[in-house]
């Protein structure tokens, strides 16, 4: 098992609200949310993310969001590029087609979580995956409509 390649895997985390969520959430939602998180998985020199158009990739920091707010190092994977590509192809055919996008339940973070688990066996930080349920619990309670919309991010969060 020695000579297998080792590819670093990183998680790029972006705050779609550009800081607004941290400021506004107590007012709008009655609850402190530190950000509206969008994530992308960076491996093999590319950043992979899921959006309304399906699974995409680009060069790291190559989305409209620019530099990520934070980067989480998830260790290494032995999965090489081809295998990963196959995996993504399968995903794109099944669970992560373009039309499966759901802003709360099946979004970019769901995708990142699945991919990261595939690559490393770990999960992404829970504050990201907990976000939809947090928002949902407040949105309905306060009747608020003003969840800060994803700022010019094609693919939403």
């Amino acid at each position, binding site marked *: 098992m020695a000579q297998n390649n080792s590819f670093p895997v990183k998680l790029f985390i972006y705050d779609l609200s550009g800081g607004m969520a941290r*400021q506004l959430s107590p007012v709008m939602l009655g609850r402190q949310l530190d950000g509206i998180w969008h994530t992308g998985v960076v491996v093999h020199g590319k950043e992979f993310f899921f959006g309304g158009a399906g699974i995409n990739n680009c060069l790291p920091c190559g989305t409209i969001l620019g530099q990520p707010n934070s980067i989480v190092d998830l260790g290494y994977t032995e999965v090489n590029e081809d295998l990963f590509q196959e*995996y993504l192809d399968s995903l794109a055919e099944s669970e992560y087609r373009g039309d499966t996008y759901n802003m709360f339940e099946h979004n970019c973070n769901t995708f990142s979580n699945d991919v990261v688990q595939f690559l490393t066996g770990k999960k992404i930080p829970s504050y990201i995956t907990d976000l939809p349920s947090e928002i949902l619990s407040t949105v309905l309670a306060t*009747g608020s409509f003003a969840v800060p919309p994803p700022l010019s991010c094609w693919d*939403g969060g």
Partner: protein
Amino acid sequence: KLDPSCSIGGVKMAEQGAADLGNNNNNKPEASEGTIIKVTVKTPKDKEEIAIAEDASVTQFKEEISKRFKAKQDQLVLIFAGKILKDGDSLSQHGIKDGLTVHLVIKTAHNRAADGSSTSASSSTSTQAGNSSASSPAANPAPTTVPTGSGGFGDLASLAGLGMGSANFMELQQQMQRQLMSNPEMLSQIMENPLVQNMMSNPDLMRQMIMANPQMQQLMERNPEISHMLNNPELMRQTMELARNPAMMQEMMRNQDRALSNLESIPGGYNALRRMYTDIQEPMFSAAREQFGSNPFSALGGNSDSGAQPSRTENREPLPNPWGPPNSSNPSESGGGTTGSTSTSGTTNPSVSNPLGVNPASLGNGMFNSPGMQSLLQQISENPQLMQNMLSAPYMRSMMQSLAQNPELASQVMMNNPLFSGNPQLQEQFRSQLPIFLQQMQNPEALSVMTNPRAMQALMQIQQGLQTLQTEAPGLMPSLWPSLMTGGIPGVPTGGAVPAENPASSPSSAATNPAQQQLMQQMLQMFAGGGGSSQTPEVRFQTQLDQLNAMGFINREANLQALIATGGDINAAIERLLGSQPSLVVSIS
């Protein structure tokens, strides 16, 4: 020798005892003694629980998997904790225990390059490689010439791969486009490819390609101007340039937007714009949307084609002040209709008092009166600092602007809110109010009111009052409104066209909400006039004001008030003025 009674679950004893590392256990169908564990094997599409001996080897595991997933063993790639499981390994070596999940990728037949044959030399040297690499070329009809990744052509090939090698070309094409649309990086990469550039610089070819699209054809039939555009090589080339250069594209879009907003301010321009939008842009958008398959936000909200936006342009007219007249007329009513200063504060700047764009029609419907909204407003009024912060944030401003410039986007975004998903009526409402709302938000005076806690409180009180009224006297509301709005004496059938325009004011309590809404809408329309683009009622009613003046009605404020109430109808306004100002009669004669 095997003693059947001591085998667990029928596991046969291995001849060599426990599985060895690197030992080829292929000939052993079952593992040696060990407990059975249940391991979940997960593919992107599927999930199965497989029972296997704890100390089984990966090969044995794969055998089981191959049976369950109906795939060949050499197609299976197992990944656990980021490691690829080699056939010679054992499950325990990787720490695979009961209840854990192992990921599986089933290599498809047309895999571009066999796993490991191009990238990791290691796999060819791995002990069990005999299995995988021997059979994979056979199983791999795809051209082995395609290198992994790099190179323009390589990228295109990988695009095809992304399309899952779909036999359906249309589908593939769509996916490609989708990828393109959402990935600017890829787009520029493609543009740089000399092959593509060559193609692009041939306008004929481009035209052909575009015309081939059935939706475009439809569009062109309906609007011959579009085909003109296509036939103009200069324009085509420019568009190509644009496509190549995303920055330039943005610039262009911005210019276009600016030009459009300039157009709006020209009288009559608004209508032309609207026509233009509904005739050309809308079908184009929907065609583009269908073609590219993804307006990203339509996927988000599962929204049906919302091209039925009433108007793409911002509504510059200030909403007449639903708060103002009732606000000012409440005290004045009791005072017998003094139309002095109190009314001016209400009328001069309607938008100030209506910062939230709260359409009175919405009062009849629970949205803004929801307890949530109330508490929200309360919070806001209690914490003016917060509002101030929010509104002064630079990104807020630009966000509002961009939202205002693209109401379609804004509506899509609003629709995403799960709150709306179950309530189409609400959606409709919100959609139509949206441009107004956005416009209001941009008005700095509106913003300053929002930061004024007392104002917010007053607003809330009004809302509460209205709500109470509504519940107390639902039938009374429609007929009360006109009098409230016009500041006339209660009970006096106002001369305005208002009641006449509201046939639906029947006080059936079940229907009050829609009735009220209708009433409000009509009144609003009346107040909003006929699409004039001037800012204040004074400007709008300038001619009428002058006329009134000439007739001897010198009280400009009262005139204005009356004109607003009657929507510019001079005669009605005169009646009103006469009705409320008996003293004026004297001055005329």
